[in-house]
């Protein structure tokens, strides 16, 4: 579904991605782990062109995204993204947050979009918050709404950048539950996280990044129980 080849990205002189190659298939749950600054976020953001790669290519469903001729806005409608800081729109109610993109981009009529929004809200147990504003919600609730907002566009793949890192510990569970539910429903997911429990339980593939490269990838069993690279052992001993 997403094919990445020879991806390079620099910020000024800082060489952040140094040649990433991978292939994400439909239905996969890819979890990316690695030390801080290793380029996980940058890689994820290159997948939907929030960062423009310097070299290499990202091909999504056969379309090269880092191409002048590619209408990136259209492709992004099929790639949901969830951020560490939620990034809900504070001047809109929850339901307005959710229906903004479907009504403006897919020309869904408002009632229809609202009905769908409420259905999705029910799934994450927040239908009573439809008319609240984001700043009336807890962090965990905000992140569940952010997930719903992305899902409202019926994306083919969901990208998560440390979705639970900004949350109080007691709220991490509720967000992970929603993500597990998504995984069960067959959503293709790429998740950057430090939640090793989630990686072990849900991932179909774990990718370990270090210094701008994918150093090792495999099933959770391979990577966690039998890591080949000494850097992974060191990293895991710190986070587990």
């Amino acid at each position, binding site marked *: 579904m997403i094919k990445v080849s020879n991806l390079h990205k620099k910020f000024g002189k800082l060489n952040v991605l140094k040649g990433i190659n991978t292939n994400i298939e439909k239905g996969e749950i890819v979890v990316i782990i690695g030390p801080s600054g290793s380029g996980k976020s940058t890689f994820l953001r290159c997948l939907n062109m929030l960062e423009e790669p310097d070299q290499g290519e990202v091909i999504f469903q056969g379309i090269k995204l880092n191409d002048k001729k590619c209408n990136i806005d259209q492709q992004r409608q099929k*790639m949901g*993204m969830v951020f560490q*800081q939620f*990034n*809900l729109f504070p001047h809109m109610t929850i339901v307005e947050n959710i229906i903004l*993109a479907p009504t*403006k981009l897919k020309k869904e009529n408002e009632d229809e979009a609202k009905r769908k929004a409420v259905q999705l809200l029910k799934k994450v147990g927040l239908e009573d918050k439809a008319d609240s504003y984001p700043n009336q919600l807890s962090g965990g609730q905000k992140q569940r709404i952010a997930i719903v*907002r*992305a899902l409202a566009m019926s994306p083919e793949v969901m990208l998560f950048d440390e979705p639970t890192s900004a949350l109080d510990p007691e709220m991490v569970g509720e967000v992970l539950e929603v993500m597990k539910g998504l995984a069960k429903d067959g959503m293709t997911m790429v998740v950057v996280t430090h939640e090793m429990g989630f990686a072990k339980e849900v991932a179909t593939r774990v990718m370990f990044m270090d210094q701008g490269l994918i150093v090792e990838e495999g099933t959770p069993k391979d990577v966690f129980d039998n890591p080949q690279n000494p850097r992974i052992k060191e990293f895991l001993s710190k986070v587990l």
Partner: protein
Amino acid sequence: MDFLFLKKYGWYYLNGAKNTILLTCIAITFGIILGLIFALFRLSNNKLLRYIAVTYIEIIRGTPILIQIMILYFGISQYISLPEIPALSKIIGYDSSDFMIGAAAVAINSGAYVAEIIRAGIQSINKGQMEAARSLGLGSSMAMRYVIIPQAFKNILPALGNEFVTLVKETSIVSVIGIMELTKAGDIVRGATAKGFEPLLVAASVYFCITFAASRFVAFLERRMKASD
């Protein structure tokens, strides 16, 4: 001191105050429109648009408004004359085309300042907001329109309110091209009564009443906005 002249000339001030308020409202409306356009130009990826915006903003802010208004009045109006709007002429009490030049000059001047206010407002919005909007598939202009600008306007409302109060005073400049607003009214009354001082005091008091009421109103709006958060 003797203010008995007000009995005869008081309506000059009322008429002047009305025109001052009208000028200010027209100028702030077009100032905000111009300001928004040039703020977006300034922040755009297009080099030419950025260049146009910077030129406009720097020239306006780097030259006196008195000169700007005279250039517009004596220079440009030689070549193009604004049509008279009868309805407007009726409200202001005389030919509206000079009045429109005055309003345009103040609006063009204010637009440069408003552009900078709006630019700062847009830049103060967390960049995660733009990223979230873009990641949903919204193009950059839709993201601006639905996500960034509404938030920016909320943030800059106090600054825009300030600009409005400043403009009330700034419009006094159009008296130099003979527009009958509050300052001109004071002038006329001075001439007619041969009093040098009192007519000015009256004009100043009326200005103060307008700006005071305006700043109260702006403060009220701000409180309303805060409450709605």
